């Protein structure tokens, strides 16, 4: 994806280079044309003074050498002429052994090259009538120094242009960066939102962004509110369903029903099926999943209380250890994390002999939650079945059943993976891991 900064720079460079080159070229061309017109005027007066130098005596027309400029005598001085009449031809001594060709048309001609220096000539041919004869005078001037200085001017111009372009780009980058600062701040805040380090975006960054920020904040509040309401509703529904279920389960144990064991068994089985299903679905309905970007779980604050709770439930014979980096925060909703950890740890406590270990590791790209116990573990061949069906392996010990089912639901809602492994402590190790980039 291209950045706004990149697009602006590219557009600006394109426009500046194009306009700059065209302007420079056109102005150079106009300047050169003007200069040539000025030089042409000089050449014209030059050829007129040559015409005056053409006199007449007894033999016919002759050129009066005293009236010539000294530059016409010095070889390759840069000033040349030739005079053609029907009877005679004269050429300046400065031409030396080179030939100044006669232009076919009268007027100014450029880009002629002459002599050993390969001089670039500006040539003017003029036709006159003098003494009833046609006199064609061609004067030329070395144009090379002018051309060279033009070349130098062009180079200097290109250099200055390039430096100006660079300056403009740097300034533009700076300006655009400043102008886009609110966007950058919003981007950072959204990243913080996803990492759970913030629950709202800040207002008052830029008028253009305000509606967007308002809408995002509104959506966040709305999601949180919906979650709260859904949880409240499922809680009420659960209460309404579970109390009658508890009554029925107690009734099924009644002395009168004990007299009809078949009837009692069917009743108990059906009640358990309802209980299991209701529990599972209500728990699933409570999940926030990853719908709440501002959510976070503060390990330092919550884990000790959770461990105390577990120690209270399971008595003092278990050693509950944690291995968590201080200050660690998980970018997930608090109740979801508690539910996941609570169920995993509760299972581990039920099966452990002496030790349960909770590990939470944050790597650069992924988070791992590991719960180890030193209990009997689960055979590798049966682990998949436990995960898939969330079934109870052992009816006498509650757990590894519904508990794991909920854990799997939470992991799924988070985009996380749940795996059962063999623990270093000798029992089961349950690992939940998810990539951090996942929002």
């Amino acid at each position: 994806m291209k950045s706004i900064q990149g697009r602006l720079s590219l557009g600006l460079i394109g426009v500046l280079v194009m306009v700059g080159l065209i302007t420079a070229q056109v102005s150079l061309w106009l300047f050169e044309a003007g200069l040539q017109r000025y030089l042409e005027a000089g050449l014209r007066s030059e050829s007129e003074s040559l015409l005056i130098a053409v006199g007449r005596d007894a033999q016919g027309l002759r050129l009066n050498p005293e009236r010539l400029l000294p530059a016409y005598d010095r070889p390759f001085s840069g000033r040349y002429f030739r005079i053609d009449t029907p009877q005679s031809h004269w050429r300046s001594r400065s031409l030396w052994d080179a030939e100044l060709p006669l232009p076919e048309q009268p007027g100014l001609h450029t880009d002629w090259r002459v002599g050993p220096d390969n001089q670039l000539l500006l040539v003017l041919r003029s036709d006159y009538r003098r003494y009833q004869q046609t006199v064609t005078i061609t004067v030329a001037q070395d144009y090379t120094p002018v051309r060279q200085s033009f070349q130098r001017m062009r180079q200097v111009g290109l250099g200055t242009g390039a430096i100006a372009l660079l300056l403009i780009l740097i300034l533009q980058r700076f300006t655009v960066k400043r102008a886009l600062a609110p966007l950058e701040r919003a981007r950072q805040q959204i990243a913080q939102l996803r990492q759970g380090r913030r629950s709202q975006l800040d207002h008052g960054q830029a008028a253009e962004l305000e509606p967007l920020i308002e809408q995002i904040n509104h959506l966040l509040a709305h999601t949180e509110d919906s979650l709260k309401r859904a949880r409240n509703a499922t809680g009420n529904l659960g209460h309404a369903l579970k109390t009658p279920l508890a009554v029925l389960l107690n009734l099924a144990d009644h002395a009168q029903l004990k007299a009809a064991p078949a009837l009692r068994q069917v009743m108990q089985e059906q009640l358990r099926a309802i209980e299991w299903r209701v529990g599972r679905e209500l728990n699933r309905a409570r999940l926030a999943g990853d719908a709440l970007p501002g959510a976070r779980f503060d390990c330092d604050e919550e884990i000790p209380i959770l461990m105390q709770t577990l120690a209270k439930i399971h008595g003092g014979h278990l050693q509950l250890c944690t291995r968590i980096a201080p200050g660690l925060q998980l970018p997930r909703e608090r109740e979801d994390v508690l539910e996941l950890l609570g169920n995993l740890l509760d299972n581990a406590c039920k099966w452990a002999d002496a030790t349960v270990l909770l590990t939470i590791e944050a790597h650069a790209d992924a988070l791992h939650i590991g719960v180890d116990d030193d209990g009997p573990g689960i055979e590798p061949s049966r682990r998949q079945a436990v995960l898939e069906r969330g079934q109870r392996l052992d009816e006498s010990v509650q757990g590894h059943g519904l508990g794991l089912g909920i854990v799997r639901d939470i992991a799924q809602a988070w985009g996380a993976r749940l795996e059962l492994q063999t623990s270093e402590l000798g029992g089961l190790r349950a690992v939940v891991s998810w990539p951090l980039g996942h929002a």
Partner: protein
Amino acid sequence: MRLLLVEDSVALADELQGNLSRHGYAVDWRTDGRDALYQAQIEPYDIIVLDLGLPGIPGLEVLAQWRREGLGTPVLVLTARGSWAERIEGLRAGADDYLTKPFHPDELLLRLQSLLRRAKGLPNQPTLKAAGLELDESRQVVQRGDEAFALTAAEFRLLRYFMLHPGQLLSKQQLAEHLYDGESERESNVLEVHVNHLRRKLGRDVIETRRGQGYCFTGVAR
């Protein structure tokens, strides 16, 4: 064992009351949070079963209030709200255990049993052991070595209370308060009759009489 049941569902409370009584608990039942708050402070309960969704005052608040006022009785919270966040909240408010509805009646009995043992500092074993006797609470049978003795409901209640307080001097009033619910007649000679029945089954010296003071369970064999 004196038990306070706080539950607003009449059907469930009826069931529980019957079941708990059959297992030797003297049950008082309250439906309202305000009544429960008061009731727990005027009677010496051994254990409390508390529902959280109560009319009057919410269960969690009742519990927190009890703990603020220094009531140390073990409390088992009984609720339909079973998420871990709510569980943690309940246990932080001062609950000792947490049972979510629906539950199997045996599960409740087991939890109560282990909670009572923990409160008395006893190990959590399937049977209650004290002074050479072994009491199976689910079958209401007491054993000494290979010899087993069946008990009546009243004898079971009395013996369990003795076995949870071995070597302690227990006055007749204290025994009556912990063995009978608020609505029963408390006649001291009924207690004496049951003590005598226990002595006849288990031996004279199992329970000593301290004249003018009460009884002391020693569990010494004949």
